[in-house]
């Protein structure tokens, strides 16, 4: 892997569950429970998992939009985990986020041009005519016309709104863009446009993406490496091709088998797992997946498997994969 832009070590985010008149703590949501990964310069790391697995909390923690309970986040070698708001400010320029819902993440009373220009103005990088010229250039980069700068968000379609969000993220020339389900709210034909735009922009600017999505096909398409999360932990991480060709964790295998393939001759949907994802308030002991796993052994209920290297940078947290054995 190339030089690391972002290093996350043993990140944890726990939320207290309070109940009763005295708001006493009755439990803890283990939203993120010991996540470590590194993201290289110009690399895209896909983070997949089902709802409640903690993928969005990881994204927000990386940007310090939520305060991690413990762990370390290093951006370009510098520890930003405990920086104060003012200390963090210069770093904010190098990390940006694109959210899922382009309807909720744009201020309806600001023009598109003001929305995209605001970060530039806030950081005092340009004003007046220079600002306008920069915003116009950003509009062109994301496939919008500069004359649309005067329009308000409601005058744009969903795909165009997501382009505005991308332009806003680009405005400060970041090194890292966190994309939290950026295409999930869009129609299929528009999804492809936005994914292509994200790929093109990365080629031009060389920034890194932390790309979060529940859609495996989208993640497979855009990522260089993919991490699979389950109940607050990474259970498998590998190069994209390696992960999809040779999934080693039973959960990854089940996820892949659950995706309906757009070919009537492909094998029919075979649900490989029963039941629902357990609650992150009281995650199962040992391996959190053992309650739904086809291969669960007695040991899985008590021993928590660590993420170990299974060769070619393929890491997997499953007792079946100790040594060279693999689950089939």
């Amino acid at each position, binding site marked *: 892997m190339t030089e690391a832009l972002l290093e996350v070590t043993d990140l944890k985010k726990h939320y207290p569950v309070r109940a009763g008149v005295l708001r006493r703590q009755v439990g803890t949501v283990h939203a993120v429970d010991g996540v470590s990964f590194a993201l290289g310069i110009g690399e895209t790391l896909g983070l997949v998992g089902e709802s409640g697995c903690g993928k969005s909390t990881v994204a927000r923690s990386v940007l310090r939009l939520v305060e991690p309970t413990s762990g370390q986040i290093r951006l370009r070698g510098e520890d930003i985990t405990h920086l104060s708001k003012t200390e963090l400010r210069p770093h904010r320029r190098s990390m940006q986020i694109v959210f899922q819902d382009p309807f909720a993440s744009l201020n309806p009373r600001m023009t598109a041009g003001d929305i995209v220009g605001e970060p530039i103005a806030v950081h005092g990088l340009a004003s007046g005519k220079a600002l306008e010229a920069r915003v116009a250039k950003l509009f062109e980069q994301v496939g919008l016309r500069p004359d649309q700068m005067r329009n308000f968000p409601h005058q744009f379609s969903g795909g165009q709104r997501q382009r505005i969000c991308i332009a806003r993220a680009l405005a400060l020339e970041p090194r890292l863009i966190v994309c939290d389900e950026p295409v999930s709210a869009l129609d299929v034909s528009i999804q492809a446009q936005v994914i292509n735009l994200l790929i093109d922009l990365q080629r031009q600017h060389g920034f890194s993406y932390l790309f979060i999505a529940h859609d495996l096909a989208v993640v497979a398409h855009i990522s260089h490496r993919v991490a699979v999360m389950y109940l607050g932990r990474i259970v498998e991480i590998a190069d994209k091709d390696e992960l999809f060709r040779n999934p080693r964790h039973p959960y990854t295998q089940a996820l892949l088998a659950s995706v309906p393939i757009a070919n009537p001759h492909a094998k029919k949907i075979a*649900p490989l797992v029963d039941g629902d994802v357990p609650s992150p308030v009281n995650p199962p002991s040992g391996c959190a997946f053992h309650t739904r796993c086809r291969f669960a052994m007695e040991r899985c209920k008590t021993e928590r498997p660590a993420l170990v290297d299974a060769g070619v940078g393929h890491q997997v947290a499953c007792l079946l994969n100790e040594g060279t054995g693999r689950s089939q």
Partner: protein
Amino acid sequence: MADMSDLVLDVKNLRTVFFTNSGLFKAVDDVSFTVRRGETLAIVGESGCGKSVTALSLLRLVPDPPGRIVGGSVTLEGTDLLTLDDAEMRAIRGNRISMIFQEPMTSLNPVMRIGHQIVEAVRLHRNMSAKEAHDLAIEMLRLVRIPEPARRAREYPHQLSGGMRQRAMIAMALACRPALLIADEPTTALDVTIQAQILALILDLQKELGTGLVLITHDLGVVAQTAQRVIVMYAGKKVEEASVEALFAAPKHPYTRGLMASIPAVPASDVAPQARLNEIPGTVPSLVRLPAGCAFAPRCKLAIKRCQEEYPPLADWGGGHLAACWRAAEVAEVA
């Protein structure tokens, strides 16, 4: 064509419009299709293409005003539903024709126990004692593979997970053994492993009960894995209809072809890393200002002058493969 007695639903030239301040929306414009016993018909399209309004029209649940069914017929087991009065329609809804929606939390009553909701639906249509209906409710919950059905029947919707709620919805919809089930994006709100469970369940039950199924979805993967026949809708019109094999083997409409090319595949091992997807340029048109000719023409690579001026008729390309495109013959060669 198969035996006519097999025909559960026969929709002819259905037209549903909405009267709004910005003009007249033709949400469903001259759409026809049939569903046979035990058959799954998928209706695919993007948001605003009219697929959900088609479903609501079948049940006569289109809010009036602003919407109204202005033409066509919806024949369910020999009865044209559009000619029935409200009371007659109520006797059929939930009895011979049922529907499950995308978001089970908004379609279940939050302050009623699950079992009671099924009992209510059953007793509306069947002359049953409360005890018999309750037994049937628990039987239905067992049928949709809810563990401990007797206990779950006493729970409220918020106590169930998303997947369990959708199972409960299915139990309720099938409790009266309807001839036709309409499922509008039944798994869109669910996680992929749960989606696989629910789709497998719907298909198993359909086989067991012989229900006709209209499955509305935007996901071509779901279509390929579940349906026998497919309708593709665009801007309120049916632009293509075919058996699922024929549609995926050789789509005739450029829109269908574009949709198929724009979805990324899993696994992507045979694709170069970060290959560009084929995109359909532009956006879905507004239904108020539809072009005179083919609504897809402004986004279509193959569009010629005729496409802008004249709407293409649905032509049969063999074996019941219908497509409404002036250039359907050339689609395979060009794209």
